[in-house]
């Protein structure tokens, strides 16, 4: 803080961090006070990565927000928060969608799968994950979770895609580093077409 007294200061008062509530608790109490009667129930049970999670979700809350802020699943990234990059791609009932542009209430009856849910029970990496390591597909890694989820969605329905099919399927995932060639190599390897 600059000590000059003539300057305007807008700090409401210092709160010792130890005394502060966890950031999420106040969220619930403040948000949504003016909601019309009859709107959706806030308390949801959602199926994420095979587990049913009970979570308090505001009506307008996006799935990306729930995953990242409420469930601690930060592997789902927010690159743009408006459906223009694909970093937040997750699967809902095996379909790849942008979690930033989906309301959590829209998927309450669906099975949501995030990058954290891909490993097998014994810890084995999903073939797409293993192939992406082998091909050194990611660069900065920020878009990688989304690329993987789109690749998983593709291979679930088309286990041996052509390279052209793969790039069409992954085309809703932007990579600012330009690692497209390497992600495609990863998909081809994951589908057993590259050795």
């Amino acid at each position, binding site marked *: 803080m600059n000590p000059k007294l003539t300057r305007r200061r807008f700090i409401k008062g210092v709160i010792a961090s130890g005394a502060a509530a966890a950031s999420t608790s106040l969220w619930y109490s403040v948000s949504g006070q003016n909601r019309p009667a*009859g709107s*959706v129930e806030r308390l949801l049970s959602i199926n994420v990565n095979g587990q049913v999670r009970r979570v308090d979700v505001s009506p*307008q809350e996006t799935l990306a927000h729930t995953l990242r802020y409420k469930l601690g699943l930060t592997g789902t990234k927010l690159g743009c928060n408006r*459906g223009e990059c694909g970093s937040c791609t997750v699967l809902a009932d095996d*379909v790849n969608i942008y979690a930033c*542009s989906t309301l959590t209430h829209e998927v309450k009856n669906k099975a949501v799968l995030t990058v954290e849910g891909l490993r097998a029970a014994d810890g084995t990496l999903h073939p797409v994950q293993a192939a992406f390591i082998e091909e050194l597909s990611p660069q900065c890694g920020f878009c990688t979770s989304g690329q993987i989820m789109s690749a998983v969605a593709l291979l679930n329905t088309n286990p041996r895609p052509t390279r052209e099919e793969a790039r069409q399927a992954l*085309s*809703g995932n932007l990579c600012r580093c330009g690692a497209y060639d390497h992600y495609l190599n990863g998909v081809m390897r994951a589908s057993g077409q590259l050795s």
Partner: protein
Amino acid sequence: MSSHDVMPDMGLYQPVTVEDAAGIARQFSTRGWLVGGGQDTYGWLKDRAKRPEVLIDLKGIESMRGIRETADGIEIGALVTLTELTTNSLITGRYSLLAEAAGRVASPQIRNVGTIAGNVAQDVRCWYYRRGLNCYRAGGNLCYADTPEGMNREHALFNASRCVAVTASDTGPALVALEAQMVIHNGSSERVVSAENFFVGPNIDITHTTVLRPGEILTAVRIPAKWANAEFYFEKVADRNVWDFALVSISAAMRVNNGVIEESRLVAGAVEATPRRLDRIEQAIRGKARNQQTADEVAALAIQGARPLNFNHFKMPLLENLVNRAVRGHA
């Protein structure tokens, strides 16, 4: 585009019948917002450029799903996703024009949740308007794009009336070409409007792109058998091949007999506020051979009456070229 990006506090309704949905929509009127896939919704809300108070999520309404055969063609539920349009065998088999158009929308993830209703009802993409400026379309009294130095590369060639924004829909022109009928429900009654009359330009209503009014829901799209298995041509030219709106698109349906065009529908996208029916071309090619010569003879008719702005002159040769391709039948 503001620096906001979190969804604002609002209510959410998830009705399971059209009647309930229409009732809620009527109750909230302009304070309510119908949402299907939501892909043209959440940006508006995050930007605070539109401020409805409640969202009415239609996705729980089972009757608005699915693609079915009818006595005269097919009926597509309003909630049918763009991805379904690209994979459903009725569409790919008989109306591949629509499948192709749907397949060029945005990106796979957007097509996976974006609906046919949302694609036709989406708002224009004029960047000034999207930024939240108080232009004509936003209810104000000026246009930022149609000015001596306006940045209007993506804007209209035709029929601008104060507002120079263009339709952003890829499926809209295809539906106009297929003579689709739009089924609109208000909770108690249904009306059916031709796709051509469904879209409205700024001369009729500057703050809306369709005839839908508060309390009304687009529940289905009907495509008559007339154009089933016709000869089709679709092409969309955009800067990027993903996540981009058309600079110009062309949708064409033709009945060709022994190489001669008996009847046709040609509709251009992204050249005016609504899908633009190219009826002069349709008339000019009737009875002509579907070939390069015919295409060369008629293509220039497509740009008659165009009034280009500072930066969109290129849309004239582009439209002419796409019409040429559609008439001759190949790229």
